[in-house]
């Protein structure tokens, strides 16, 4: 299990014991974490699983791909240098304890 914490836009935080190998998006959706939609199911077609990786985790998570960058063009909330599509972040043991912040709106 890998722990991941979602911090909602209103500051409420939810920590989930996630399955190793699952994405940050799928983990949120499977555990009723509101604030991540994941409309296209992780096909990188919708930009409704936008999250901001916590500064402390930025290096470990790594940077977004060009495709991801392109899709974030259509994200509803502000895109920053820490923006990622959470469907593209796979939970590996190295990411145990990961913290992501959720935007105000996904749609």
């Amino acid at each position, binding site marked *: 299990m890998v722990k991941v914490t979602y911090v909602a836009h209103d500051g409420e935080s939810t920590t989930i014991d996630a399955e190793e190998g699952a994405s940050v998006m*799928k983990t949120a*959706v*499977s*555990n*009723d974490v*509101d604030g991540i939609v994941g*409309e*296209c*199911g992780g*096909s*990188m*077609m919708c*930009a409704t699983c936008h999250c901001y990786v916590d500064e402390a985790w930025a290096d470990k998570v790594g940077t977004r791909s060009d*495709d991801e*960058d*392109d*899709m*974030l*063009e*259509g994200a509803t909330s502000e895109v920053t240098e820490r923006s990622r599509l959470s469907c593209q972040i796979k939970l590996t043991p190295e990411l145990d304890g990961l913290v992501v912040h959720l935007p105000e709106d996904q*749609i």
Partner: protein
Amino acid sequence: MAGPVVIAGAGQGGLQAAISLRQAGFDGPVTLIGSEPGLPYQRPPLSKAYLKDGDADALALRPQSFFETKDVTYLPETTVTRIDRDAGRVEVTGPAGDSALPYENLVLATGTRNMRPPIEGLEHACDLRTLADARTLRGRLDAPRRIAVIGGGFIGLEFAAVAVKQGHEVAVIEAAPRLMARAVSPLMSNRFATLHRDWGAELFLGQPAVSVDEAGVTLADGTRVPADFVLLAAGVQPNVELAEDAGLETANGIRVDTRLRTSDPAIAALGDCASFPDPRTGRHVRLESVQAATDHARLIAARIAGDDPDGPDYAAVPWFWSDQGDRKLQIAGFAGGPDTTDEAVTENVVARFDAHGLAAVETINAARVHMKVRRMLASGDPIELSLLEELAAA
């Protein structure tokens, strides 16, 4: 407490209606009725990722716990057999026998079923619509085969691209003279015809299949396409019978107004089965897409939860996608009118215009352009071809 909502159909749209009702604070009873076994799941991967990885668990849209924590009653393997509008209830049949469920609001999310064209011997062909279909299909693909796909639309072509990659011999048979004729411009059809041929598929265009047997498919002009496995992917038709029997207006789907109400305001329809006014043209359209299903569901849920007679009309910009091989086809907007004219902006970007202006932009592996166009279409501002040329060149 608010009166009960019954949702007939547990695909992505039906489930989204339940999710959105609770997110909007709706506190009345919600019942979601689905004809298939298991939890509601995503269909798009059935012709893509699932064919490759076979991971059915990954398809579930929500876990079982969702239905408990959100207090949504989910009735799988259950069918609505009749709507009794006078009594305000639906009659259902399922594993627990027959029963009647009262509703204050009914949401029809009955989806579509595969079209069965008049082809002799169709029982030799496999469908690809449900998870059960996809499981069967996967089982049949474990050894190299000669495959004929009847239907050159999104599903048939997505499947063909996966099958060719897996080493099968694949032929695609399309009755129309071009691929994906209902969904994309002739320019895009041609582009994908070239791609599929390059990947190794054989294409038979402009000739409908007339018969299927154990050794292959025969086309109208007598051409014989040998195959030891045949997939039927010849489009779908909306499930409107329930609505029709209840006296609701239907015409290529269950007809709804700008707030997605049927001719009975207590009954809404969404997604693949609904014919709704296109916000851009006012023309009634029926779209087969995740986007329409979920955006419809959100509006209907907000309307029911908010009970606001002057709430917003449905205004979402349509978008579609199809993964074929390593190509990501994305369509922003919807061009369905007979007056459509097309402009090739680049080899991978096609703009479609009609009397109302820009209708849609089709892109291949150009997600940035796609997303920008979605935003531009949502703004409602006029969009000139020159602007698209700038975007595509950036």
